């Protein structure tokens, strides 16, 4: 709950403009298709970028995010010390963030920032990439995004600034505002990484080499890492509008699936596009399972020339008839097209929250379109349940052999071996939404609502379970290398968290009256 910099409050735009504009303008080259940098609307900052300016971090916020940052590993993320790696030092700062008086250094941010980055580098195995990064033409504006190996390099800026940390006292409106700010910030970060990815992919497509491939892979890992946090912010336009998804049936537009369609099976669908090249007619008719980050992962990381489609299928026949060179060329061409598509969808997502693109920020904060503000908050809360179904049941329960039915066609990020990293980021996203947007959970979150409603003990228990789950995730080996005992242990650690969600926080007994995501809400009595 402690906070240091007010978010861009709708009530006081002037207090937000400066940092916001600075953030905007620093987004630079990566978001060149966006509008101008000058704006009176603070929320423009997450969508527009046309000039380069260093981030004007708000006072102590730089300490929160950057303390201990030695990174350079993750160029796009290190500007604010945002943890993106897989190992984190220090305590989680839970208690301090609840005290309401925590200082930046006591919130756990420095510890996290410091170890994250390096951890990510080690895990990704991309430490060599940065050395070559500077040689990439046209990338200078990306704030050193290629300098991934530079231990001690100044953290590059992604144009999104520090995480917005609300200093407002708790109210339901303030919680919606804080969550909306946090979502926008994460969307912005992903858009920046999608831009970096697109740039690197373009370079690789133009002149493929082992070096450019490795850089593109690094960018994919960064984008995927950020996206895995975004997965926890599925409400509003990002969310599916389909009832079956149990997300935002009011304002959901399904943008998420356009960017990331896991757990849908993708490989054969991607190969169908390689065979038919139908995407050249436009992505309007391309299935979500054929595009997005999962398609990019396959195209960047899978080196075989075989196909997963049925042997007698048209795709298999085409694959069988293509020369190796032709197939490689097709893969490169589709790689470029998909990365551009991902970037465009990321931009569209950012844009939907901006005033010019529908102003979903105001819509959400005012709970417009929802039956009432409780429905808006309930839908927001449903985003937290990602850890229950997707993480516990699918990502862990299936490989652990605990989940009987398998709606999931394949493990996550299997070609890049990034499944564990994704879970780590999922849990970080959970903290950002549940506790607060700061790196250590500073700011407003559902825990503050619980405290205000007299159920702070539940919030504290959830955070303790989250701490344990994060600790387990950060020390967990790659999913495909984990032993059954390790998987079982990790599963139960996450289950302890999800038990609290389903038995206490959500459902008919929820002290906050947060219903489970019903496909349809009937009468009660």
């Amino acid at each position, binding site marked *: 709950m402690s906070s240091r910099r007010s978010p861009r409050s709708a009530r006081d735009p002037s207090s937000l403009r400066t940092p916001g504009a600075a953030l905007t303008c620093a987004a630079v080259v990566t978001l060149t298709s966006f509008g101008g940098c000058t704006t009176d609307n603070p929320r423009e900052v997450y969508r527009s970028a046309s000039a380069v300016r260093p981030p004007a971090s708000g006072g102590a916020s730089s300490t929160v995010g950057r303390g201990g940052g030695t990174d350079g590993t993750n160029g796009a993320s290190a500007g604010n010390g945002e943890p993106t790696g897989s190992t984190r030092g220090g305590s989680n700062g839970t208690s301090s963030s609840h005290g309401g008086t925590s200082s930046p250094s006591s919130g756990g941010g420095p510890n996290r920032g410091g170890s994250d980055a390096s951890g990510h580098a080690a895990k990704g195995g991309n430490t060599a990439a940065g050395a070559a990064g500077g040689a990439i033409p046209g990338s200078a504006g990306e704030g050193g995004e290629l300098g991934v190996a530079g231990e001690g390099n100044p953290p590059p800026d992604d144009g999104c600034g520090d995480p917005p940390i609300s200093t407002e006292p*708790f*109210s*339901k*409106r303030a919680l919606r505002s804080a969550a909306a700010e946090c979502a926008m910030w994460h969307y912005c970060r992903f858009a920046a990484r999608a831009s970096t990815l697109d740039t690197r992919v373009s370079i690789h497509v133009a002149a493929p080499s082992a070096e450019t491939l490795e850089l593109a892979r690094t960018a994919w890992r960064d984008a995927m890492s950020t996206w895995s946090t975004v997965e926890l912010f599925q409400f509003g336009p990002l969310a599916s509008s389909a009832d079956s998804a*149990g997300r935002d049936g009011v304002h959901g537009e399904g943008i998420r699936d356009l960017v990331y369609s896991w757990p849908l099976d993708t490989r054969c669908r991607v190969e169908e596009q390689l065979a038919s090249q139908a995407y050249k007619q436009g992505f309007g008719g391309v299935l979500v399972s054929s595009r997005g980050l999962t398609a990019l992962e396959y195209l960047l990381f899978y080196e075989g020339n075989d196909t997963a489609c049925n042997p007698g299928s048209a795709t298999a026949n085409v694959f069988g008839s293509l020369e190796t060179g032709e197939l490689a060329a097709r893969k490169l061409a589709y790689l470029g097209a998909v990365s551009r598509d991902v970037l465009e969808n990321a931009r569209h997502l950012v844009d939907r929250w901006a005033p010019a693109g529908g102003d979903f920020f105001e819509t959400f904060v005012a*709970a417009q379109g929802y039956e*009432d*503000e*409780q429905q808006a908050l309930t839908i927001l809360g449903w985003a937290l349940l990602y850890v229950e*179904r997707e993480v516990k*049941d699918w990502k862990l*329960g299936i490989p652990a*052999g*605990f*989940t*009987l*039915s398998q709606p999931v066609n394949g493990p996550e990020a299997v070609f890049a071996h990034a499944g564990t990293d994704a879970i780590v980021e999922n849990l970080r996203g959970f903290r950002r939404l549940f506790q607060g947007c700061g790196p250590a959970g500073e700011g407003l979150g559902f825990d503050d*609502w619980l405290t*205000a*409603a*007299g*159920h702070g*003990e*539940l919030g504290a*228990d959830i955070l303790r379970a989250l701490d344990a789950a994060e600790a387990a995730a950060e020390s967990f080996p790659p999913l495909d290398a984990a032993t059954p005992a390790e998987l079982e242990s990790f599963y139960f650690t996450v289950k302890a968290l*999800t*038990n*609290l969600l*389903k*038995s*206490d926080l*959500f*459902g*008919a*007994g*929820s*002290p*906050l*009256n947060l219903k*489970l*995501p*019903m*496909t*349809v*809400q*009937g*009468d*009660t*009595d």
Partner: protein
Amino acid sequence: MTRTSAELRARLLAPVDAAWLAAFRVIYGILLAVSMGRFIAYGWIDSFFVAPRFHFKYWGFAWVEPLPGPLLHGLFALLFVLALSLAAGLLYRASALLFALGLAYVELLDVTTYLNHYYLAALLAGLLATAPAARVWSVDAWLRRRRQHAERPLERAPAPVVARAWLWLFRFQIGVVYTFAGLAKAQGDWLFHAQPLAIWLGAVTDLPLLGGLFTEPWAPFLFSWCGFLFDTSIVPLLLWDRTRSFAFPLVVAFHALTSLLFPIGMFPLIMVLTALVFFPPSWPRRVLHAASATFRRLPRELVSGANGSALGPAPAPSRFATTALVLGALYCAVQLALPLRFLAYRGNVLWDEQGMRFSWRVMLRAKGGDTTFVVRRERDQRVFFVSPRSYLTVLQESEMSSQPDLIVQLAHRIRDDFAERGHGPVEVHVESRVSLNGRRSVPFIDPAVDLGRIDDGLSLAGLVLPPPTSAPPRTHPVL
């Protein structure tokens, strides 16, 4: 027959104006039609009955199976038409009977769709199907009169009266709902901790004008006590002539407020309009008489007898009258026994659910939980964690998680499913935690019990672990 029983019989069979019953038929028929329309319009037929792959059965009614989707849609359309036909009094007896049977069938399809007010709707539909509610102001009566006029023009039409017993039977039914709902509130959570009302009021603090009020510390207690006092006192207040004019507006205000605060569908409207049975039987004529001052063209027969007079001679009691009175008394006895059966279980009904259904415990619990079935394959002791989601819709899972008989039913389904999949014999245990009225969740079902070997029945309290002993926490509704 003793003198007392003879007097009682005479009083119960004494004729009263049938206008109240006709009005009830019209109003209630329209409400039922709207209710059926809501199922159709809101997609509830598919969500509640077609989409689930597994249906929870009422004990003794496991043989009730859902029709295929298109037929179910057709059934609801038919029920809609039958409700309108019932309201109009067209082919009344057949319409009312078919409607009551159809509604009962629908309600028996899946326990998780049980609601007290659906149950009330079915009971009232059943009563209507047996009552002479089409004697006046109905298409049937109009057709009969025309036919009679053509065939025997000099013969006088039967008096538009019904036995007083019908009036008291309907009053009893409505009174039972209020009274037991009120008595059920006489417990600590409701009266001394304002739970679960404090939780629910916390969800509507954005309500114009009233929302801010709900954040006052005393507000949940005020609403809890008002609800308790209203439910326990409203029946006598409605019955007594001198307080009825004050009590009915109270009924309207109370249910208007609950309608505003909670998603309880048609229930407030049903309770307001059915409370009209507490007025003198000629109330509809009085209303129409008053309306005739404005609408001068109202047919004379609608307003005649506004003071209860000029109803004509009472018909002789039917030779089945005594039998009907006995059946009515039995019905009343059952309606009293069902809400009280929880006493036989000696447990906390809000926790163990033994005696919960059909007992008018309305809006008394915020209860939910998380359930995971732990399946152990006997041949190699391999363990599977089975989420109810694999078999249930979210609504079903939510309802099942706190009701032991439903947990047992799903355990049986899982056991059978594993056998069908070739896993052979399995043990089915459950990890379940339930929270009640804001308390932290505690284990609900004994995890040591192999539920696959437990028979579903009327007494599963032995499976249920002790309820939480702590008082519910104080919830502060916040803006």
